[in-house]
């Protein structure tokens, strides 16, 4: 991937030629948070790129070691703050696997609904910000119009719009409000009628196509070697979706397509997310048809202790595979919690990917990888 170009540029730099070193970030409108890229430029062309992270590091994993298992759940909201329910779920799931706690069927189905609704909200945010990165500011407003509806539905059930903290070890804190399912199904219809607008505005726009097609191509073997996950990996033609690969909750019983595209370029990464919207709608429609009656949480003791051992969860967050690894020594506090953040892994590819591209492409490529810095820095 860009190997020859990278070598060429390194050779030029080794000769003693100085490029212009430009700091992109940590304060920059298109780095999606406090990411800093140290770019070495030759005119508009990028010769070298060094991402610097850690500006948002809060030591969440260390905090987890100092408190009982369940007390860490609210902290996970602050990881990927665009899709905090996925973090809640990954954390709860790791604890459930470590302590061997079962989750009732109804809670599992509601969890699936929450996941997909939050995925839609996250992908809509991506569509909007990606459009803005490329100068199509109107897309942001269109995407936020629908995202607002999704957030309102999540607010109706969780009471919050961004940091939900709604998944508990062993289930959920409360059942769905009355008629919530009708609201979600109405939202599904609304979203389906609106995605055509996104296509007309952005997907089919020739300028947008020329800005994204063939830019920042990641071949499948590189995508695997870099440990990419989520739509970023699937856009390169690798079929890896944790919902299908290692099904959790009720995903094994649900009929949906894993969106896999071939090209591996910026456009494919955009399109993968755009197409996943429709798959999420498809999943949501099935959830309420099959929702059983029953309890929404299993009984968990006041003091949660897990037998010594290692367990990890795997959740398909909108950005990729989110995994909490928990090590227990039998005490009420975990001995170690590690968060495998999909954005962190996906960001590793950026430095090699942007070399040889223009400054404007750095913004497009970074946007298409769709990182959330809260998760990268933890």
């Amino acid at each position: 991937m860009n190997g020859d170009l990278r070598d060429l540029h390194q050779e030029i730099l080794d000769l003693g030629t100085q490029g212009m070193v430009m700091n992109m970030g940590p304060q920059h409108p298109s780095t999606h948070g406090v990411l800093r890229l140290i770019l070495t430029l030759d005119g508009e062309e990028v010769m070298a790129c060094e991402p610097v992270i850690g500006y948002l590091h809060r030591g969440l994993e260390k905090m987890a070691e100092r408190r009982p298992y369940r007390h860490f759940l609210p902290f996970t909201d602050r990881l990927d703050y665009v899709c905090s329910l996925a973090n809640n779920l990954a954390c709860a799931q790791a604890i459930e696997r470590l302590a061997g706690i079962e989750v009732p069927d109804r809670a599992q189905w509601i969890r699936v609904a929450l996941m997909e609704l939050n995925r839609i909200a996250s992908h809509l945010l991506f569509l909007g910000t990606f459009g803005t990165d490329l100068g199509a500011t109107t897309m942001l407003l269109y995407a936020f119009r629908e995202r607002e509806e999704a957030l309102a539905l999540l607010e109706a059930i969780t009471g919050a719009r961004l940091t939900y903290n709604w998944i508990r070890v062993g289930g959920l804190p409360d059942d769905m409000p009355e008629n919530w399912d009708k609201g979600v199904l109405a939202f599904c219809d609304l979203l389906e009628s609106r995605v055509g607008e996104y296509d007309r505005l952005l997907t089919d726009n020739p300028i947008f196509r020329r800005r994204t097609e063939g830019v920042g191509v990641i071949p499948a073997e590189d995508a695997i070697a870099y440990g990419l996950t989520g739509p970023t990996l699937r856009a390169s033609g690798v079929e890896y979706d944790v919902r299908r690969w290692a099904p959790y909750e009720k995903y094994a019983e649900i009929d949906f397509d894993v969106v896999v595209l071939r090209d591996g370029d910026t456009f494919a990464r955009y399109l993968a997310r755009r197409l996943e919207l429709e798959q999420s709608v498809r999943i949501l429609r099935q959830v309420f048809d099959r929702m059983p009656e029953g309890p929404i949480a299993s009984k968990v003791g006041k003091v949660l202790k897990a037998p010594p051992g290692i367990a990890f969860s795997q959740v398909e967050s909108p950005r990729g595979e989110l995994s909490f690894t928990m090590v227990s020594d039998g005490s009420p506090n975990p001995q170690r919690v590690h968060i495998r953040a999909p954005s962190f892994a996906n960001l590793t590819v950026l430095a090699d990917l942007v070399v040889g591209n223009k400054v404007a492409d750095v913004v497009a490529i970074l946007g298409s990888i769709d990182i959330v810095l809260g998760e990268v820095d933890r």
Partner: protein
Amino acid sequence: MIEQALANPWIRQLANAALLLAVINLGVLVLIYMERKVAGFIQSRLGPVHVGPRGWLQSVADALKLILKEDIIPAPADRFLFVLAPFFVFVPVLAVFLVLPFNAGWVAHDFSLAALYVIAAGTVAIMGIVMAGWGTNNKYSLLGGLRSAAQLVSYEIPVVLAILAVVFYAQSMSLVDIAEAQRGFGWFIFHPPLLVAAFVYMIGQLAETNRTPFDLPEAESELVSGFHTEYSGIRFAMFFLAEFANTFFAAALAVVLFFGGWDGLPGLTGALWLVAKSYVLVFVLMWIRWTLPRVRVDQLLGFAWKVLVPIGLIVVLWAAASVVYAGGAKP
């Protein structure tokens, strides 16, 4: 008394300039309001609503805010260039309005090389942008300034070629003569070569006025506003004012060149027709701005040199041929 004073050519010109300045500034305030409202409705939101009825006074409030703001000059900046740059951008934009005919006889100063003057004066603004980019001593601004220089120089050519085609038809470089030649709905846009020229002109002007999809020098999401990143307060207001005045001028010039100038249905005064037609064109520019993404710098320059310039050259030859062999617009 006033008539006596106006008989003096100096005072007369000064009065014209003052009147023009007032018209431009008022027009720009209206344009900014219009831009916000148009953007609002395109983006399915309301735009300004709070200051004044329907947000009418929002632009005024913003202008006041900008004037009252602290004037900041960054320490590493080249003070001389930094201070001078806004004037280099602002003054040429005002200067080109001098030759714009609003109605029969309503022109501050008409002369036989007006079309050439418009092109020449407009080019000076590039200097200002490069000065701002360099003088700020900021790498984003420098990139913005360089992009801007490349872009404006490239797109100047198709614009000139399009104007040249019109000049062939009108057989004059005076904007007044060009507008006069189109009276009675003999608009140049109805002639096939000039229809193409009008497209070339509008695309070129879109780039000249730094508007999306050609807003690379400013590129909010890449260069953080490019050449005017470090400008604030009144100096920023000058860039801002110049941009909108330029947009209006580009549209008004298009009306004079292709859409019959002040020609319209009888009953309304010609100036109103000119302004109305200009606003329609400005609306089209805004519509494009709020719909399209931004192109990349290599695509931008490639489009100018590989597409627009060849088309412009063909249009010039085509227009010349149709004037010589088919009689063109005039007998």
